[in-house]
């Protein structure tokens, strides 16, 4: 398929269609409105259904119903909307249903602002709603990667029967880049889901449920989920950039921030500074081992995020005091420039 110039949000929507998804439930919120708008035009053309729900609470529960009925389904929202979906995501994880959720993060807390942010890292990677659960979290840094990861998200959700969240920010949502859809599947070609509520004509009734009144059963269910989350280690994704040789400073960043870091690294390297980038692509499961190895060959570690230091806590735990870890964050919709990163690296090299 030929490359097409698309906005990040539109590429995400089109990727869902290429993944055989024909259902979208959502509620408008900036900065991701291009996704529901795109789906509202595109889905009817391919025999699908777009429904604007009365709230994110309703949208996420529509997801629960449709996923329980065995349909590929997705929604997108931005930070405050994801907070409202937290209850349903917990139920979806508890009932082991496959759904895809896109969070185009904006600054918070509260209504916050509409500009780019990565301040939902904790919410995405540590559960977000109540109960002991995890969602698989993928963080693209280009429009092409947003499309690829969205398509993968549907397969991963089906495989693990678990929510998969794709996190981006307004930059990636609005940015236009050439994109290619590498594969395409129709709903009819998707594997059957014998557990789904499709009508019990040739079998005993199926039940979609997250209630376990017997504590022994609930404990067993929780350990079953835990093992599943551990199995997800197979899905770990990361990028090592300019880390072939030992570096004085190892930058750890994800999503659009990683792009800014790459620009800074090019400039720094041209000046002879030994610096490289470790970019986690899956935020849960986190590429801990891979980062740990990269840290061995680095003098110092710099974590940079659009938050006051959320991924930082995971990196600190992985580095475990072996190397000094410093942090540079911008928040509230403010985005660091490559020059700011250069300055931070220069400071570390000089100190």
């Amino acid at each position, binding site marked *: 398929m030929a490359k097409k110039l698309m906005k990040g949000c539109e590429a995400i929507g089109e990727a869902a269609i290429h993944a055989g998804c024909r*259902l979208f*439930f959502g509620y408008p919120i900036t900065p991701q409105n291009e996704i529901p708008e795109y789906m509202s035009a595109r889905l009817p053309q391919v025999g699908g*259904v777009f*429904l604007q*729900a*009365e*709230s994110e*609470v*309703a*949208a996420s*529960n*529509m*997801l*629960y*119903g*449709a*996923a*329980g*009925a*065995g*349909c590929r*389904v997705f929604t997108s929202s931005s930070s405050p909307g994801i907070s409202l979906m937290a*209850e*349903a995501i917990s*139920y979806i994880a508890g*009932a082991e249903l496959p759904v895809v959720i896109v969070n185009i993060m904006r600054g918070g807390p509260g209504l916050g602002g509409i500009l780019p942010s990565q301040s939902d890292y904790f919410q995405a990677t540590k559960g977000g709603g109540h109960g002991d659960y995890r969602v698989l979290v993928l963080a693209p840094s280009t429009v092409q990667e947003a499309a690829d990861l969205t398509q993968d998200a549907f397969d991963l959700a089906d495989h693990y029967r678990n929510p998969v969240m794709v996190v981006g920010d307004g930059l990636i949502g609005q940015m236009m880049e050439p994109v290619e859809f590498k594969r395409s599947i129709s709903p009819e070609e998707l594997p059957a889901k014998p557990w789904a*509520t*499709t*009508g*019990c*004509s040739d079998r005993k*009734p*199926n*039940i*979609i*449920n*997250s*209630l376990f009144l017997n504590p022994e059963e609930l404990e067993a269910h929780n350990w079953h989920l835990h093992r599943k989350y551990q199995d997800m280690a197979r899905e770990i994704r990361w990028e090592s950039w300019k880390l072939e040789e030992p570096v004085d400073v190892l930058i750890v960043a994800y999503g659009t921030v990683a792009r800014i870091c790459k620009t800074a690294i090019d400039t720094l390297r041209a000046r002879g500074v030994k610096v490289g980038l470790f970019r986690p692509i899956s935020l849960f499961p986190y590429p801990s081992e891979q980062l740990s190895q990269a840290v061995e060959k680095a003098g110092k570690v710099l974590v940079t995020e659009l938050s006051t230091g959320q991924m930082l806590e995971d990196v600190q735990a992985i580095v475990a005091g072996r190397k000094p870890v410093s942090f540079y964050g911008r928040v509230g919709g403010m985005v660091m420039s490559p020059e700011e990163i250069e300055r931070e690296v220069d400071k570390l090299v000089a100190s």
Partner: protein
Amino acid sequence: MPTPIITKDLCKGCELCVHACPEGVLEMSKEINAKGYFFPVVAHPEKCTGCRFCLLVCPDTAVQVEAKGKTTVRTEGLTPKPFHYCPGCTHGVIHRLVGECIEELGIRERTVGVAPVGCSVLAYDYFNCDMSQASHGRAMAVATGIKRGRPNLVVFSYQGDGDLASIGMAETVHAANRGEKITVIFVNNAIYGMTGGQMAPTTLPGQVASTCPLGRDVNHAGWPIRVVELLQSLRTPAYLSRVAVHDPKNILAAKRAIRKAFKYQIDGVCFSLIEVVSTCPTGWGQQPHEACEWLEQNMIPYYPLGDVKLPEAAA
């Protein structure tokens, strides 16, 4: 000669059948069953006219009637699992009516039910079709997801008044307003049964509940919500009806309405919601037959019965 047949180990000793029998055929036993309840015995079989009132009011499908050589059996629309509800709770009656409609309409194999959070949270164990549990109040959103994804399925939700009219009111109004082709069974028992008898949006003025110990004060808590009248104001066509399950005549009318509600969905006509005025003997602190009388005297005047909206009328 017609005869009531009692499955004594299903019985919870609520005595509703004894009170319902117009001929005095049944009496309560002197011994107890495996669950520890007194159960009805057929003391005067010769008086039985085969009216089936005992069967109709029994919340635990413990009564069948043999007449003209045929014995009624527990409907295929329900699983064999005994209900967990309190003695005399009308949730059991409503379950039976829904199960019978599913069986009689021949839709069991393409029906998906959505269970709420409330006393009927375990409804997924009782309806003999595919079932989905939902979070508190969101059953209609879940039903919407199922129906939009698989329009050939018959989708119903079964919800209490706290679930549907308090925490889930937004989902209720919007599912109705979108005209989702789903069927909603709305159990109005004027209280939060499951959590121990707190005030519901439907608790009557002056009615005592555990969070309004002096009775509902309408100046403080507002007036009870009349759900079907509220939804009636929406322009979108719908079938909205209010029924009650405190006596045999009303139970039969309730079944007719539930059946009609499913029929509208099967024919792809409209959203349908049946408000079932019900009892919660435990939450109300009354004997089951007293609760039925209290319902008749206090609830029906505030919640008038009958069809409130027909889709044909809205055209």
